[in-house]
């Protein structure tokens, strides 16, 4: 049984993750996203009164799912449909997540992690556990079926509907009844051993076995003929008949009594254990079929549960969100796109940017320090990551191509000290990115190659960006390497697929944190900053 809430035809796995995802997480501030997804926003009416306790599982689920990009528009809309169902029926996804968590907690207390695979261990204790696990599975699946039946008509997403149908098929009424019969027949074993009844007469079942004498007259080739727990309560005619037949079919019958407390009695109990063990192990196909299911269900439900939390956090800051659209490779356009990580961290509604970069494969952003260049680049990166895992995007609208090969190469200010060790590391990282480029690649460069002189850095940046662009890689770069930007600007042709943006700066030096179409800025605005921070202090 598969959950298939994340993909139409596969479960979540660690395959196909972003390359060196820890860089992406750090560069785009995704830790904050994971964190926000793990905490409920608790409201009283309109007012937010508190944040819930962080749920580490939600956090790790977001990390797992978000770091594996989807490959095409079909996969993305499969998740989007489910997610918008969840937005509409928040109570359902909350219940689904809570329920699957409960199942696993209960299973953990039965030693899931210790043995991992149910139905294969060989001690009476483990056998009892397996019986309980079997019981847990049967109960849980019955409950899950009920939950789906309750919300059935209101869930429109293909993913939910298909899962409901699979559940009814793979955990059919017939299977459910058979399992309940088996559980009734072996329940005595769990009860006996748990209650520690030793001296008292126990209502044991009659077990009938066929065997032959092989390998030096040892008992072998067993066949389980009958397990009859209820025989002592009432004797139904059918069982009387089969009993009579048993006696008649044998040519001779011999009675061996097994006195209590002897080795024989202990061995007879082993035989009984083996019979119950055998029955439980026969249920293994059922256990195996649902073994991974609850784990996957919890993980997958957690992703949507986290997304609902994220939605609440956005709503709290009045950050609007949308269902993003998938376009061709050269499409990138958005309205009022916001860097919501900053919004959540600083508890305010950030400035939005609107752009249409359709047909552009290289974007070069220059301009004022502290003007919002990096924030802008991060907002695009964040949106791209959210879009590529089926999440909502913090914008009025967002449309982009799909780039499963997505890379960030950010140099943070504090890193930019000039030393060859750092440049070596930067180049090494760039080279690893080149090794991992694919057919649909997007690279975000933020102040790359800053750890050398402007002149050298510009040459390196020029060579690399040019080669990447010619290889069909989409490059978005924020740079202070003005000779590099200027050279690109000078070399552009009519209908060029290169676009230049600049952080807007008003005449009075005030920044609006909006990007505008602009030729590369040739003056650095460090002086402005100097004026602002130091200049006034000493002039006044």
């Amino acid at each position, binding site marked *: 049984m598969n959950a298939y809430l994340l993909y139409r035809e596969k479960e979540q796995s660690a395959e196909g993750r972003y390359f060196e995802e820890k860089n992406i997480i750090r560069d785009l501030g995704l830790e904050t996203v994971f964190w926000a997804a793990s905490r409920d926003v608790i409201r009283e009416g309109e007012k937010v009164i508190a944040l819930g306790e962080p749920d580490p599982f939600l956090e790790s689920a977001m990390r797992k799912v978000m770091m594996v990009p989807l490959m095409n528009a079909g996969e993305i809309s499969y998740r989007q449909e489910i997610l918008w169902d969840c937005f509409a029926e928040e109570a359902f996804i909350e219940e689904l997540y809570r329920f699957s968590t409960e199942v696993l907690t209960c299973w953990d207390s039965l030693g899931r992690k210790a043995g991992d695979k149910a139905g294969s261990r060989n001690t009476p204790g483990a056998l009892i556990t397996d019986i309980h696990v079997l019981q847990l599975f049967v109960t849980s699946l019955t409950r899950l079926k009920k939950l789906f039946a309750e919300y059935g008509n209101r869930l429109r997403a293909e993913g939910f509907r298909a899962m409901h149908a699979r559940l009814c098929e793979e955990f059919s009424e017939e299977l459910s009844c058979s399992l309940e019969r088996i559980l009734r027949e072996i329940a005595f074993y769990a009860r006996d051993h748990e209650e520690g009844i030793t001296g008292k007469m126990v209502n044991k079942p009659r077990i009938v076995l066929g065997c032959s004498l092989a390998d030096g007259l040892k008992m072998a080739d067993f066949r389980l003929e009958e397990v009859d727990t209820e025989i002592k309560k009432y004797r139904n005619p059918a069982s009387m008949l089969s009993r009579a037949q*048993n006696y008649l079919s044998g040519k001779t019958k011999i009675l061996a009594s097994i006195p209590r407390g002897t*080795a024989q009695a202990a061995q007879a109990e082993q035989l009984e254990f083996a019979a119950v063990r*055998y029955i439980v192990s026969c249920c293994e196909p059922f256990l195996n079929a649902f073994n991974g299911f609850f784990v996957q269900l919890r993980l997958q439900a957690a992703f949507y549960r986290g997304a609902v939390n994220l939605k609440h956090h956005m709503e709290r800051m009045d950050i609007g969100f949308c269902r993003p659209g998938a376009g061709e490779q050269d499409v990138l356009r958005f309205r009022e796109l916001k860097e919501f990580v900053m919004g959540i961290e600083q508890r305010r509604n950030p400035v939005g940017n609107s752009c249409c970069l359709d047909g552009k494969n290289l974007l070069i952003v220059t301009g004022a320090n502290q003007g919002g260049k990096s924030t802008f680049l991060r907002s695009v990166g964040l949106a791209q990551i959210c879009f590529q895992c089926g999440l909502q995007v913090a914008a009025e609208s967002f449309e982009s191509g799909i780039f499963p090969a997505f890379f960030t190469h950010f140099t943070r200010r504090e890193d930019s000290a000039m030393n060859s060790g750092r440049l070596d590391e930067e180049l090494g990282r760039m080279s690893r990115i080149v090794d991992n480029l694919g057919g649909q690649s997007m690279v975000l460069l933020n102040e790359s190659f800053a750890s050398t002189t402007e002149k050298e850095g510009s040459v390196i940046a020029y060579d690399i960006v040019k080669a990447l662009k010619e290889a069909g890689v989409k490059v978005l770069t924020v740079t202070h390497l003005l000779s590099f930007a200027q050279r690109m600007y000078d070399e552009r042709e009519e209908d060029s697929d290169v676009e230049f943006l600049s952080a807007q700066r008003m005449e009075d030096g005030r920044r609006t944190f909006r990007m505008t179409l602009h030729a590369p800025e040739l003056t650095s605005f460090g002086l402005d900053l100097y004026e602002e921070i130091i200049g006034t202090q000493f002039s006044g």
Partner: protein
Amino acid sequence: MGEKLEFTSILDREESPWRGKAFPAFFSDLNLNQVIERIRLEWGEEVTGLYHYFPADGACSDYRREVFRDVKAEGLYEILRGFCREMKERREAMGRKETVKAALQKAVWHVREVKLYCDAFGNLSAGLQGLSLGSRGMREFREYLEAYLAGEGFLRMRQEAERITGQIEGLRLVLTYESDRIIIAQGEAAGSYDDFLKKCFPGHKKQFVSPFGAEPDLVELEAELLKAFRKRNQELFLDAERFFAEYGEYTDAALIRFASEIGFYLSFYRFEQKMKGRGFSFADPRTLESSCEEMYAKGLYDLALACSGREVVANDMVLRRDEKFYVLTGPNQGGKTTFARSLGQLVYFFMMGLDVPAEAAGIYRFTNIMTHFSVEESVETGRGKLREELERLADIMAASSRGNSFLFVVINELFTTAANYDACIMGRRVLEHFLGRECRGIYVTHLKELEGADPGLVSLRAMLDGQGNRTFRIERSAEDAPVSAGSLVGRHRLTYEQLKERLS
């Protein structure tokens, strides 16, 4: 019934003086124990001793090579492998017979062991019937086996063993367990719980395994049930006890020896197939009768290195007429020792009558292999170590001076503890000694001075590539290519040109 035939061994027509000896001295030097260990692991049974059984002469090598060619031909390997499986089963039965305590159990295991013995050789004979065998060894064995199986005594023994095992195996019991008693009956029960389980879980492949299966003896419960059952069915087990008394000793020594020795060919064949699957070549070598022909190997490699899964570089070698000794020099860790080992292995597998680790090869009839590798881990240093080295060397030099001997000699880094000057003189004397004897070989050294003008010496060199990296190629002496340098960007392969190439 014809007259009684004789058959000695599938490894040699006559008893060789090497049989049962400790393994030859060159074994560990050539890393052959690593190869044999791998062969043993692949085969899954002990065969190491068979690889220590070194042939006494060329006739023995030829005898084995013929058998190995039969093993490689269509059909024989599978038949022999099936035979080995059956014999293994028989050995297990024998082991059980020895461990169990109850006399009745012993007797039952014995009947089974004899039946497995009869079946194994019976099936082998049937399998060999239609095969066209080219080797003397296999043909003579087949004749011997047929005669043995047709013997009166064997036929009666087989019939009896089959009858008794059939009787016991055909028995079915029904046990009804009700808290403090068990009812035993003979026959089939009418229940169907197994069928119900099968219907619920069509995929399940579980067997009801006896909880007492791990214990070869009868546990108390089994003994108790058997005792009760036997009271009413006495005649059933008497035959087994009678058989045990009558056929205590029943095997044929030559057949048992064949069964253990045939593993030599089968284990190597299996190993060879595995290695071929991984892309390594093996060749059926040509035997060179005259030293006027050139000894050669194409694509020769170190089989021990190949077994270890590390990267392996193959080399060609040839010793032309009048060329006697290689002198191999070159950088450290450049593949010198590996090449020397691969040459020694080439000769070993050739002499053992097996295929050699190369694409093609032609080899002289050497009488023995002698190796001398300096013992790195020896606690001795300086003069003590040199003394020990010289003593071992003296043995090899003496062996090469014996009449009729034609040695293959592998010498690796002699006199590393001596001064350069001394080492050169001693090395030269050693080489002169071997050049004056009937032998071939290789001398690995860091001393370039030993490459000589003597026409019997061939200079080899472990090569470097243009960047100064080791290539592990061994070639007839030539100079190394010069080394080039690169910048930081270039080193990360990030110049425009490099990127164009990487991204194309």
